[in-house]
């Protein structure tokens, strides 16, 4: 459960062939910081940093559309908007 000040932290590892690891800090229901790591492939690779930035200060309920928007121009192997959102959503649900 979130701390009294509204700050919480969540981690989740999704394994669907490749691993997608999400580590996020939330303030109330907004993503404040997020790190997405794993053994997947995204082309071009640098999109991951843009994606992490794009998700900062985004309410969790808007995360899916932001992920879709950020990933639409890249070719991905072992990760896709749905699986990444699943990992983010689980990090949110398991926050403490």
């Amino acid at each position, binding site marked *: 459960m979130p701390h009294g000040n509204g700050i919480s932290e969540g981690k989740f590892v999704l394994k669907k062939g490749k691993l997608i690891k999400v580590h996020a800090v939330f303030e109330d229901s907004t993503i404040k910081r997020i790190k997405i*790591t794993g*053994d997947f492939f995204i082309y071009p690779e640098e999109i991951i940093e843009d994606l992490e930035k794009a998700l900062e200060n985004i309410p969790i309920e808007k995360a899916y559309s932001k992920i879709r928007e950020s990933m639409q121009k890249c070719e991905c192997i072992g990760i896709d908007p749905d699986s990444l959102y699943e990992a983010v959503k689980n990090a949110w649900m398991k926050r403490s």
Partner: protein
Amino acid sequence: MELRVIYDTHRRAFENMGIDEAMLIHLKEIGPTLRLYGWNPPAVSIGYFQSMEEEVDVDNARKLGVNLVRRITGGGAVYHKWELTYSIILPEIKGRILDSYKIIERGVVEGLKTLGLEPKMVGINDIAVNGKKISGNAQTRKYGGLLQHGTILMNVDVDEMFSLLKVPDEKLRDKHIQNVKHRVTSLHHLGIDVEFEELQKRIAEGFKYALNANLYEEELSSEVMATAKDLEVNKYATREWNFRR
């Protein structure tokens, strides 16, 4: 296609990654190039998207003198010790990236076939013999070209590997290691103790056949090696790069 081949030596991780990227940067001048190399001292490379601290027991690596490096390619953590590594740079292959993996991996498959094996491409980026992984491959596209590098395991000690690599769930550590032992093999485990230099030649022949290429041997120019040195020192040997995620 003319394909330059470099039968390289065992080098430090930072040097190897510097040369691979430098080759890609200089693709237009040097043309399609295949480099076959090893690692000394042993090293762990992690994929572009991985976290060094999440994947590697950094203290133990330091104790054992194992170098740690982040690749510019995605994929998983690899312990490089008894293996041959290839890197190949080519102009971009049109179509889906996954398909281009297979075109290049065929070079490894054909090379291994000359040793009497029946390798198969499996999953996204692996090659297996008798259902067990013997080669992992990773690709990036930059500077107007593509770089793919990959490993061919000559021998493997899974316990030693996991003294360096972390497992996804510590509670299931033993089970995970047992699984990997069942899923990974090496030339040695398949009864083939081939010399490094001989394996270099076999894999080069495999690429010749798979890419319908004419091979020629030529060292990299001092200009390419200068770029490689710069990348080695200012990128791959730095904590800033290796621990950035």
